[in-house]
């Protein structure tokens, strides 16, 4: 029994007479199998997400409280006063997030030409300075703030001394066919009361139905396609790296003559893919 298992392990993972001196898991047929497996997996989750939107979820741990706390920490580190959470700016941010889901866009200006300033003004916030940062597809509050701080323009917004207030909205919904979490951040500083001129602004009414839910109501996904997809990619790459390493070890010890590609080159290539994967699957900022 032990001998059979040993032979089987050798056959699949180590060069041996039974596998023509190359692990069976490195044969062309095996590589075709990994390609089909990855393709089928990606196709399956793509179809499930398209046909049954409720099944796949998007688990995020982003909250207004954490975002506010992290942003104010960054301001404190730069000797700036903290920003106060404004109900009006938060309302404007929520309207903007809802508008993006309803009109299915990802931009500072909507396809119908609505600017962030119109959302801010319509919420009743009279600003002297105002700004907007957007983020989507992130998993945690710290990832969002880190991405903003790594971008010079977003960082400038967070650390702008003129701003006194902040409005935040974290909304889950469907954008461009996929489940996502949108984070909208509106900055502002109010016009002094004496500067107010009584004016009758045109009231902008919003009849949009909120297609998403607040991300603070944490979504528990039945299947998390994002995590599964990346995990499968990592598993296949790491598995091949191990088998190729064993193969290289055999070549180094026995120096056989084989008409195949160089295992060392494949190792370098797959290791680079692992490195590149470190930069994938993160969110997007705007």
């Amino acid at each position: 029994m032990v001998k059979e298992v040993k032979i089987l392990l050798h056959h699949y993972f180590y060069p041996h007479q039974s596998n023509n001196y190359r692990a069976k898991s490195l044969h062309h047929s095996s590589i075709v199998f990994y390609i089909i497996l990855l393709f089928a997996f990606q196709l399956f989750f793509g179809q499930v997400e398209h046909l049954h939107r409720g099944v796949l979820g998007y688990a995020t741990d982003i909250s207004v409280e954490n975002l506010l706390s992290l942003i104010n920490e960054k301001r404190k580190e730069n000797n700036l006063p903290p920003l106060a959470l404004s109900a009006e700016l938060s309302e404007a941010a929520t309207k903007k997030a809802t508008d993006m889901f309803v009109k299915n866009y990802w931009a500072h200006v909507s396809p119908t030409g609505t600017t962030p300033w119109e959302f801010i003004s319509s919420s009743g916030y009279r600003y002297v300075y105002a700004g907007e940062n957007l983020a989507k597809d992130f998993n945690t509050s710290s990832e969002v703030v880190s991405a903003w701080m790594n971008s010079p323009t977003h960082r400038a917004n967070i650390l702008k001394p003129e701003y006194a207030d902040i409005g935040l909205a974290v909304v889950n919904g469907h954008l461009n066919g996929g489940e996502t979490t949108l984070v909208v951040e509106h900055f502002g500083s109010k016009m002094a009361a004496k500067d107010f001129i009584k004016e009758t602004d045109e009231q902008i009414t919003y009849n949009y139905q909120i297609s998403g839910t607040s991300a603070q109501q944490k979504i528990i996904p039945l299947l998390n396609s994002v995590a599964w997809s990346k995990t499968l990619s990592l598993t296949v790459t790491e598995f091949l790296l191990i088998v190729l390493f064993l193969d290289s070890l055999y070549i180094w010890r026995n120096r056989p003559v084989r008409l195949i590609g160089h295992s060392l080159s494949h190792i370098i290539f797959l290791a680079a893919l692992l490195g590149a994967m470190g930069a994938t699957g993160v969110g997007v900022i705007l």
Partner: protein
Amino acid sequence: MIKETHFHLFHQLLLIVLLGFVIILFFSFAGNPDMQFKVAIGTSLTYFVWGLSHHALEGDLHPKIVVEYLLIALLAIFVLKGAIYK
């Protein structure tokens, strides 16, 4: 023998430099999945061409080797696609 070692060393170093550049590109396009996927396709093509050139210069380019590099390049595209897209 020494000439052969130098040949392999030069080619492996060239591959490492190329792939190092690919990693830099991936990080500079973090948050831009479409650009990362284009880089992934470019990387796979580069590796395929590198593999064929290396074996052609080595004098052992065989259809079996061409298929092997083609499959590894294809596998890389699917591996990276799974990691890139949410």
